[in-house]
């Protein structure tokens, strides 16, 4: 049953207000037309509903799943506790995780560029979005994102002559961002995530990044503040820019993508060691007690032969 639930629920993700979604969408959404020109991969639109505006991002290349696209586009997510696979928070919204009730959850949508949203009938962990398609996440009672699907393009085949020496600050041509490992020398900072594993540290692989930079508070930089030429002019300009994340419309490079608490620290290690010691010690004590007691109480096999017709054990008559 858990499995069954997990299949249906991941379609759905978290948070609070539904009413503001449309208004916010109209106000802050980046113009889809411009986005269309930008994303070479899977475009991701996240509608925070009443908890924030609408943000969009771009997962470059061909992410393996909807969740990979989500994190590849610069959004962090966490699951509902005890229901892995069911997204509870995107970019720490809602905070705290509300357990994804039917009227305030993250719903998961697909669209063709310029098309309309369709509710996903697969979990985001199972669905493999095609390059050039659009993914939508909407918080609320299952209404589609309040923004027309931003366009995305399939990565074009690699042009024969990429410009390997292009400085990262330059407007990246589509070619270097391709997932195709075609240009060995052309590892500019805009290589696709799965083609540049050793790129900037916080460009981490989907789902495994931990301890990203502190998040800009959701909604602080809604889509409306997108640069005129999204991403291409300035975002990858420094080494700190996440290599695989090209903001599509206002998703800044500093989005926190890893909500899990930072691993490490003496307290957690101590907790692990103490827990193992405690469980082991108590288990040994139990085993020893059981042995001692079974030795003390010798099984009282009665000496005499038993008549099969004897009455039941004394306990049977209580």
């Amino acid at each position, binding site marked *: 049953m858990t499995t069954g639930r997990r299949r249906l629920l991941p379609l759905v993700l978290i948070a609070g207000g539904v009413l503001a979604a449309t208004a916010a969408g109209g106000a802050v959404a980046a113009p889809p037309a411009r986005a269309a020109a930008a994303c070479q991969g899977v475009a991701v639109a996240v509608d925070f509903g009443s908890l924030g505006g609408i943000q969009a991002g771009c997962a470059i290349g061909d992410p393996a799943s909807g969740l990979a696209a989500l994190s590849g586009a610069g959004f962090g997510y966490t699951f509902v506790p005890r229901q892995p696979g069911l997204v509870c928070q995107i970019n720490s919204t809602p905070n705290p995780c509300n357990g994804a009730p039917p009227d305030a959850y993250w719903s998961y949508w697909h669209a063709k560029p310029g098309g309309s949203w369709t509710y996903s009938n697969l979990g985001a962990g199972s669905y493999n979005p095609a390059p050039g398609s659009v993914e939508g996440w909407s918080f609320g009672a299952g209404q589609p994102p309040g923004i027309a699907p931003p366009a995305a393009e399939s990565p074009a085949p690699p042009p024969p002559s990429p410009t390997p020496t292009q400085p990262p600050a330059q407007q990246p041509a589509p070619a270097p961002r391709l997932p195709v490992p075609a240009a060995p020398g052309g590892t500019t900072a805009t290589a696709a995530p799965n083609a540049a594993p050793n790129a900037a540290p916080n460009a981490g692989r989907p789902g495994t990044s931990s301890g990203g930079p502190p998040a800009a508070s959701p909604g602080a930089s809604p889509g409306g503040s997108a640069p005129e030429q999204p991403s291409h002019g300035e975002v990858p300009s420094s080494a700190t820019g996440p290599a695989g994340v090209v903001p599509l419309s206002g998703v800044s490079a500093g989005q926190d993508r890893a909500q899990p608490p930072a691993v490490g620290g003496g307290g957690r290690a101590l907790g692990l060691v103490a827990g*193992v010691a*405690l469980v082991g010690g*108590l*288990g040994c004590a139990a085993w020893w007690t059981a042995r001692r007691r079974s030795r003390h109480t010798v099984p009282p096999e009665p000496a005499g032969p038993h008549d099969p*017709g004897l009455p039941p054990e004394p*306990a*049977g*008559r209580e």
Partner: protein
Amino acid sequence: MREGPGPPAARNKGARTANVTDRFRRPFAADYPARSLHPGAWWLWALGLGTAASRSTNPLLLGLVLAVAGFVVAARRSTQPWADAYGVFLRLGLIVIAIRTVLHIVFGGGFGSTVLVTLPQAPLPGWASGVRIGGPVTAEGLVAAVTDGLRLAVLLACVGAANALANPKRLLRSLPAALYEVSVAVVVTLSTAPQLITSARQVRRARQLRGDRARGPRVLRTVLVPVLQDALDRSIALAAAMDSRGYGRTAGVPPAVRRATAAMLLAGLLGMCIGVYGLLDAGSPVLIGLPMLLLGAAMAAGGLLLAARRVPRTRYRPDRWRAREAAVALSGLAAVVAVLAAEALGDTDLVPPVAPLTWPSLPLLPAVGVLAAVLPAWVAPSPDSPPEAAA
């Protein structure tokens, strides 16, 4: 191997007639070697531990619950036939974990990025697109499945601990009088398996002493017939004993009261069903929820009280609820309270995130609460000790 502590002298009386009188005398003599704790206390303790375990997927905390329950069982279980239940439930738990893991691997939900192995994926038609068979197996999903199975296994182990520690027959004695026919049936049912085992053991031993070393299908015949005959004899003896003690007689209750009782019980149960539905379904009117549930519960309770008038009944040596019972029940409650409090405080160690994978760490408050539940290992009366004077 484990036998009841009945006096050997009484057992060796061969004659059937002697057995019957012996059967009646026995409860007064050696049936109660030590005061046994009220079974309800054990059940409350175990359910408390189980509830605490069900709120967490932290393997350290679950292991602690398992160890605490195991220690208490090792220290305080009796030598009755049901005292081995803990081990049986532990094995059942292993099966649960295995099933949960295999189901995850076969129908696994897809999340996590650490792919361990990619199984061939069965192509399914479009209408079954929500189902996946095969496909990549990720470390995150596997850990989630195993810890989830472990949670269920620990829950089962807690039930096993209650089964090992509490005397089921004494628990049934504590049921309300209105349920007495049901409880009689359940007692007879519960007694069947241990009695059959005892009977088969005795028949086998008798065969061995006679030098009968037969094997194969013939054993079935030579064992089955005496065992079945024994079971029939026992049933007749039990029925006679119950009849002679007045079982089945009902007090003269006017038909109007009887009808009112039935109506109240039925309406109460119906109301409770509707109330639960209303509580769980967010869309239904508020009046359908909690008020309906309370009304139904009140009517059912009233019906039970009325029904109890039909069965005037005394209890022989009733189990009393004393300080030890309260301490055992409270120690189980401490585990639940600690875990729920940690949950309310937002302790992330209760459910360690699986994507990305992290090492679990023992959460302090729930660990203290669960450790408090080890107290019954000393608080509960030891089955080895001589009976208390007050018992």
